[in-house]
């Protein structure tokens, strides 16, 4: 067998999974390298949670291969699982127990109960003051933070989070972002984070993968994905300008914004050609600007419109 790169922390090849007639994963490929904060993006039902549950050993794949730190997840090896922290969607806890007791339950399963480490994890997520309150009295955001704390137990090398910021208010979302950054800064770990809060992922992640209908559409750094920039123009005749641009640059997907500006998807190298085309056609240009695509724009292009290939 060919040796695997030690830098491949999460590796999925041709992952398939079907639930009855519904094909949740259709040959998904996913690579997360050591040190990444990897944003796993996709709309509801795209296959994110199914992938994470396969990685967590909660369900089995029908086909393909999934590996964590070089070992197959099918082995359900205890040694492997001790190095991986999971936060499954909507974390649940024993309501009558307090945060310390709930984390102690998880620590028993992890194999080592260290009260100081449990308190450290609670402090990291900002729950030190509420550590002795029963979890049934916690708000949604506090439960989500407790879920993060249990994922951090045992200082795992890889942390896989399924929708860690879902349902949180803006301060809660910011708090989760800061917690993850703090953990990376203080402990150094690789993160795989599934989410559809795109703005948040853009701020947090070093690499992203966009999944749709169980397949990976695009994967790479934000720079790589945003290499095809956005050109915004203010024209004397926007309709004719859009028609000319669509004829010459078929993949530029021109559209008009609410303020009558025309927006196109173009490489920087194509911009002079477009300007020449419009000027020669007698259309006046009042403004031309270029900027990288936002993650939201990329996502919408790829997922909603089929996107540039």
């Amino acid at each position: 067998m060919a040796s695997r790169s030690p830098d491949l922390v999460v590796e999925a090849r041709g992952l398939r999974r079907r639930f009855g007639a519904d094909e949740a994963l259709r040959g998904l490929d996913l690579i997360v390298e050591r040190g990444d904060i990897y944003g796993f993006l996709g709309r509801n039902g795209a296959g994110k949670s199914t992938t994470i549950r396969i990685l967590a050993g909660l369900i089995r794949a029908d086909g393909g291969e999934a590996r964590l730190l070089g070992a197959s997840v099918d082995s359900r090896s205890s040694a492997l699982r001790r190095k991986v922290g999971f936060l499954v969607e909507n974390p649940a806890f024993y309501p009558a127990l307090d945060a310390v007791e709930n984390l102690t339950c998880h620590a028993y399963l992890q194999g080592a109960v260290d009260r100081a480490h449990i308190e450290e994890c609670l402090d990291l997520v900002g729950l030190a003051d509420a550590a002795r309150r029963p979890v049934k009295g916690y708000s949604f955001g506090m439960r989500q933070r407790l879920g993060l704390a249990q994922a951090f137990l045992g200082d795992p090398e890889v942390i896989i989070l399924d929708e860690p910021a879902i349902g949180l208010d803006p301060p809660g979302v910011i708090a989760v972002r800061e917690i993850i950054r703090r953990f990376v800064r203080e402990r150094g770990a690789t993160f795989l984070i599934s989410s559809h809060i795109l703005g948040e992922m853009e701020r947090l992640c070093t690499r992203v993968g966009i999944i749709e209908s169980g397949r990976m559409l695009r994967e790479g750094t934000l720079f790589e994905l945003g290499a095809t920039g956005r050109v915004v123009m203010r024209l004397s005749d926007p309709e004719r300008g859009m028609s000319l641009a669509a004829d010459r640059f078929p993949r530029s997907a021109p559209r008009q914004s609410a303020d009558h500006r025309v927006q196109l998807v173009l490489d920087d190298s194509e911009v002079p050609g477009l300007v020449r085309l419009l000027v020669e056609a007698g259309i006046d240009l009042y403004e031309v600007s270029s900027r990288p695509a936002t993650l939201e724009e990329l996502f919408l292009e790829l997922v909603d419109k089929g996107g540039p290939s």
Partner: protein
Amino acid sequence: MTVRTRSGARPFRLELYRMTRRPRTALLVLAIILCFKGVVLLAGGGESAAAGRGGSAFIYLAESASMTLKLGWLLLLCFAAASVSGDRSRGMLRMLLARPVDRVAFLLSRSASLLVVGGLILLADGLVGTGYALLFKSFSDVADPALQGPQFAASAMIWQVVRAYLMTYLGFAATLSLGLFVSTLCAHPTPAIAWAAGSGLALEGLRLVFGGDLGACIMTGYNSLHFERLSRLARGIAEYTPDGFFLMAAAVPIVHMLVLTTGAIVALRKADLVE
């Protein structure tokens, strides 16, 4: 200080910790049993009016246990049925099983904690029943000349009482295996309890249809069987049953328990935790 636990022992440590930290449910079950026992006690322990106050402690023990443990059996069945399915519906199961824990060890540890609850039910029943009997009844030799039945020494009867509790415990073990098996097949506790209680009552129906020892084999978890036999014995209207029969009878719930626990393990190992 870090306390390390061996891989197979981890879920058992968790169950132990959970039971000591959150004994509410187990205490509730015990409270219900004790309340019911109190009602049975006030009503005369099911004992015939002729026996009255000051009558045979063995008849009282057998008949009151027979009534109380019917409820205990049903509670234990429902408790076991809600065990894994309850954790699954709350999302706890996927949280716990994403940890480095073997599913077989997890299920066996859950089974062990239920066995502790079953043991507590029997212990509570036995202690309260014996306490009351010691105060108000007589642990005398069994002798009923009017019925011309056989006679037994009190010491032999005490062993019969202990044996009835031990056999009932085995029946409880088979009962909770049934509950646990159903629990692993259901994603929510309500259908799990309905299925488990339905299965238990169906088995009881079969016992009534077949009767006798065949019925006893079908209905391994039916605790009252041994106490009904004990009651007849204490009244002098039944033959002394040799230990050999009980050894054979003990094999039945053990086989049921092994089969059902294996079924539960297979079901949990194959389960997709998508909830």
